[in-house]
């Protein structure tokens, strides 16, 4: 028993799950047990979006200090706008819509990496700048008009099986895939190696450029996927649909135990952190706290979680 606990304690992701459960218990204690299951279901549906982009952001952050993708929110918006406009509420155009949206995301990834590699712009500024361009593209293409998703997309995004959102199951599969990618493929190992020491990685014969490129591409594509399913989920794309995801994508990655210094990634932690952040918001809403108190509590709890969890984490 104690043995399991010591083992668990060593896992960097465990704290996000503990925090999540604590917050959930606090919520249902307040409501007297009412809605315990439904809250979790809602958390699962909404956390999935954060998880998808969190996975992409995690890969980027893992490639080393300074690497971060700030263009995720804009890419979500662009993909959502392109998808719904191309699909034009028609089930038959579903596939071509998805392809168009992913194509747009692909271009975003290409562009981001071009800025970083060819113009040697630090990623944080490169992706920030490109996010403005992406948003402008979305504005001029979509004109701020909200087009409904085709029924098939909406159904896919909202269907539940025994209370578990279908989407969550897909994202679980995706997460396992990414975890496998990191641990067991050459690409994943290269990402981890670059994150620790890019020069050593190059001299160890790893393909640094291609891997970084693939990583920014992956992040953009995952943002694109999020844009598509999110517009299916919430009844269309809007220009501000990505707004909440900038800080969230970074927060779930770091709270989930991924090292901001690079070289260490953690997939389960992203689940814990995404659910935690959603449930934290729910808890504060349920308590009926005022906006000020809610913001303060959010900050305090995030810092508290990382303080409890982060103590023995190795940092460079």
């Amino acid at each position, binding site marked *: 028993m104690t043995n399991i606990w010591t083992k668990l304690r060593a896992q960097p992701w465990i704290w996000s799950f503990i925090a999540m459960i604590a917050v959930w218990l606090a919520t249902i204690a307040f409501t007297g047990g009412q809605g315990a299951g439904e809250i979790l279901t809602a958390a699962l*549906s909404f956390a999935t979006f954060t998880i998808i982009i969190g996975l992409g952001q995690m890969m980027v952050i893992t490639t080393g200090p300074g690497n971060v993708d700030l263009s995720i929110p804009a890419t979500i918006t662009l993909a959502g706008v392109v998808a719904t406009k191309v699909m034009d509420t028609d089930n038959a155009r579903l596939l071509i819509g998805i392809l168009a949206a992913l194509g747009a995301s692909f271009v975003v990834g290409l562009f981001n990496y071009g800025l970083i590699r060819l113009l040697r712009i630090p990623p944080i500024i490169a992706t920030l700048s490109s996010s403005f361009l992406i948003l402008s593209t979305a504005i001029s293409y979509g004109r701020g008009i*909200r087009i409904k998703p085709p029924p098939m997309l909406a159904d896919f995004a909202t269907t539940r099986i025994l209370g578990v959102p279908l989407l969550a199951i897909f994202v679980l599969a995706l997460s396992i895939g990414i975890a496998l990618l990191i641990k067991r493929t050459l690409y994943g190992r290269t990402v981890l190696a670059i994150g620790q020491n890019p020069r050593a990685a190059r001299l160890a014969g790893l393909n640094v450029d291609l891997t970084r490129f693939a990583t920014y591409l992956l992040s953009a594509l995952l943002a694109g996927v999020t844009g598509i399913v*999110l517009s299916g989920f919430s009844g269309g794309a809007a220009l501000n*649909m990505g707004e909440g995801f900038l800080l969230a994508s970074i927060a779930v990655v770091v709270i989930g135990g991924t090292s901001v210094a690079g070289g260490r990634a953690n997939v389960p932690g992203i689940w814990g952190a995404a659910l935690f952040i959603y449930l934290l*918001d729910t808890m504060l*809403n349920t308590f009926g706290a005022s906006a000020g108190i809610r913001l303060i509590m959010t900050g305090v709890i995030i810092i508290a979680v990382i303080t409890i969890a982060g103590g023995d984490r190795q940092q460079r």
Partner: protein
Amino acid sequence: DTKDKKIALSNNYAGNSWRQSMLKSWDKVTKQAVADGIVAAADPFTTSENQVTEQAAQIQNLILQGYNAIVLNAASPDALNGVVKQACDAGIIVVSFDGIVTEPCAWRIAVDFKKMGAVQLDYLSEKMKDGGNLLEIRGLAGVFVDDEIHKGIEEGVGKHTQFKIVGSVHGDWAQEVAQKAVAGILPSLPEVKGVVTQGGDGYGAAQAFKAAGRPTPLIIMGNRQDELAWWKEQKDANGYETMSVSIAPGVSTLAFWVAQMILDGKEVPKDLVVPFLQINQADLEKSLETTEKGGVANVEYSKADAEKVVAGK
């Protein structure tokens, strides 16, 4: 005579359908006005971030560019006063609308946001004599419009004591955020009879109720086409009744005409009030027809309309 005069629109945000409609209305009406030779130019400017500082810098640049009037949708009612004063001192007419500024030298085309909150309760009390539990979806914390509408709603609840707000969330005026917040709080709430909103969150709220398997309450809409379409659907299916209220994005064109009139030397009171645009059950079909798919119900002002508003009629 204003045919040599140049007017600029200073806009602080373009990231939602309301603002896009507003810009479109501006474009449509002012292009015609320029073509007709009423004014020399009417250029729109938007900042990339919804930030006071950026807008302040923008206005300073407009001053330098020699515009005669600046039509302003402000990021903050007070924090731009410094730069608005500079503009006035440079002899520039400043007309603020929607997001108004408090600097006395500027004109204000205000919407009574407080009342926009209060009428929601008035409507609800008419529909539901027994009252009941309400859910409030607010906007972005710390922003003046959010605070005003909220105050109006609180006032309404004070007046109609049969209603009780059992839950309040901030939707940040983004449908995804609102939907997320409502879905989170719903399971913990007792039965909800009505949802009061600040505009644009109705559809998301309805989705959240549906997803939670709750009966759909009376949700106040915010004039977005998707909300109206959903309302129509429900109305046809089960006679669903509600109302919809928001500001018409075309108020930017009213501000344009007001600025033009002031430049023309007309006497215009510093404070004007425009009515918000309310859609009732009876007008639903008509409004839905005239609203662009995916857009916002709108009213654009002609010069004559504007003169009427100025005259206080």
